[in-house]
C-alpha cells in the first residue's frame, strides 16, 4: 500500500448526496416563542371546537338553518355585544391558529431560504388583511345600511 498524499486525499473526498447544512444550535435561553406558539395552538384549538361548532349550529342547523340568513338576521345578531364578541374571538383565534399552522408547515416543507421567506411573507400579509378587514367589519357594522 502506498501512502496517500494530502492532495490525493482531497481528490478522494466524495460529495455526499445529502450534506448537512446546519448544526443543532445551542443559543441558550431563547425567547420561548416556539413554546408559547405550541401552547397557543392547543388552547385556541380547544376554544375553537366550542366556538365554531356553536357558530355552525346557529347559522346552518337550528331554527330554519341556512335558509333564514340575510342582512336582517346578521344585523339582529350583531345588535348584541355577546355575538359580536363571539365572532371577534372566533375570527382572531381561527386566523392566528391557521396562520401559525401554515407557518409551521412552511418551516417544515420549504427547503430553500428564499422560498420559505416569501411564502411566509405572503402568509403574514394575507392573514393581516383578513384580520384587519374582519375586525373592522365587526366594530363598524351599521345596521341602517339596509335602508
Amino acid at each position: 500500500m502506498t501512502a496517500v498524499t494530502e492532495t490525493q486525499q482531497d481528490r478522494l473526498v466524495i460529495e455526499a448526496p445529502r450534506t448537512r447544512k446546519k448544526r443543532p444550535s445551542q443559543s441558550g435561553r431563547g425567547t420561548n416563542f416556539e413554546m408559547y406558539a405550541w401552547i397557543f395552538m392547543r388552547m385556541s384549538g380547544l376554544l375553537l371546537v366550542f366556538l365554531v361548532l356553536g357558530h355552525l349550529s346557529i347559522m346552518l342547523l337550528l331554527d330554519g338553518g341556512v335558509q333564514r340568513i340575510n342582512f336582517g338576521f346578521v344585523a339582529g345578531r350583531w345588535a348584541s355585544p355577546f355575538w359580536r364578541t363571539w365572532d371577534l374571538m372566533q375570527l382572531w383565534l381561527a386566523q392566528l391558529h391557521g396562520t401559525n399552522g401554515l407557518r409551521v408547515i412552511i418551516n417544515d416543507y420549504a427547503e430553500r431560504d428564499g422560498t420559505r421567506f416569501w411564502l411566509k411573507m405572503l402568509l403574514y400579509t394575507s392573514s393581516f388583511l383578513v384580520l384587519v378587514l374582519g375586525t373592522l367589519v365587526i366594530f363598524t357594522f351599521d345596521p341602517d345600511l339596509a335602508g
Partner: protein
Amino acid sequence: MTVVEDRPAAEQAPVEDHQRIITVKVRRYDPEVDPEANWQSFQVPVEKGDRLLDALHQIKWYQDGSLSFRRSCAHGVCGSDAMRINGVNRLACKVLVKDLGDEILVEPIKGLAVLKDLIVDMEPFFEAFRAIKPFLITDGREPTRERLQSAEDRERFEDTTKCIMCAACTTACPVFWNDDAYFGPQAIVAAHRFIFDSRDDGAEERLEILNDKEGVWRCRTTFNCTDACPRGIQVTKAIQEVKRALIFRRG
C-alpha cells in the same frame, strides 16, 4: 466494531430443498461507479427462520461482495444495521424474511448522507446526541458511596434507558428528513433518560437546550419514531413528557 469489508464474491451457494427463493431489491450507491443511486435485484435462497440480515449476508458472501452495510452483533443489541425495509425503519437482524413478502425493498435510512449502499454518515446523528450532554451532571459534594435511587425513581426513566442508538427513530421522522438541524427523537430520548433521573442535576440545562427553535417544539407527534424503535421505546411519549416538563417547570 462495524464490519465494512469488501471481499470478492465466493461461488454461488447451492439452493437446498427446504429453502425458497425471494427477491431482495437493494438501493445501491457507489459514488466511485455511478453518481446516482439505483435499485439492484438479487435472487436469494432463504430458510423459514432467516432474518433479513441473513439474506444480505447471502448476497454479500455468495453473489456480490461489493454490497456494503453495517452490522456487528447481529442480534438487535449493537444498533448497527438499521435500514429502511419495505419503506419502514427496522433492524435487519430483527426482522424475519417470512414477514416481509417475496419481494423486499432495502434502502439506507433516510435523512443522513449516504456514503455507500446502506451505509450513511451517522455524524449529524451523534452530534445531536452529544449536544444534549448525555452524561451525569451533579451539583454539590461527591457522596462517599454510590448514588442511591428508589425503585420508583428508577422506573421513571426506565423506558428511555433501552435506547441502542441505531437511529431508526430519528431517520423515520419527517421533520428530520427536511430539517437536519432538528435534534431528532433519539437526542430527546437520551435527554429524557437524564432529565427524569433523580440522581442528575442537569435537567434545567438540558431542558433549555431542547427548548430551542430546533428542539422539542419541532415535533409533530406523527409517531413514526415510536413505530420505528426496535426496542419498543415509547419515543413520542418521551418527547411529550419533555414538552410537559418545559411547560410546567418552575421559573
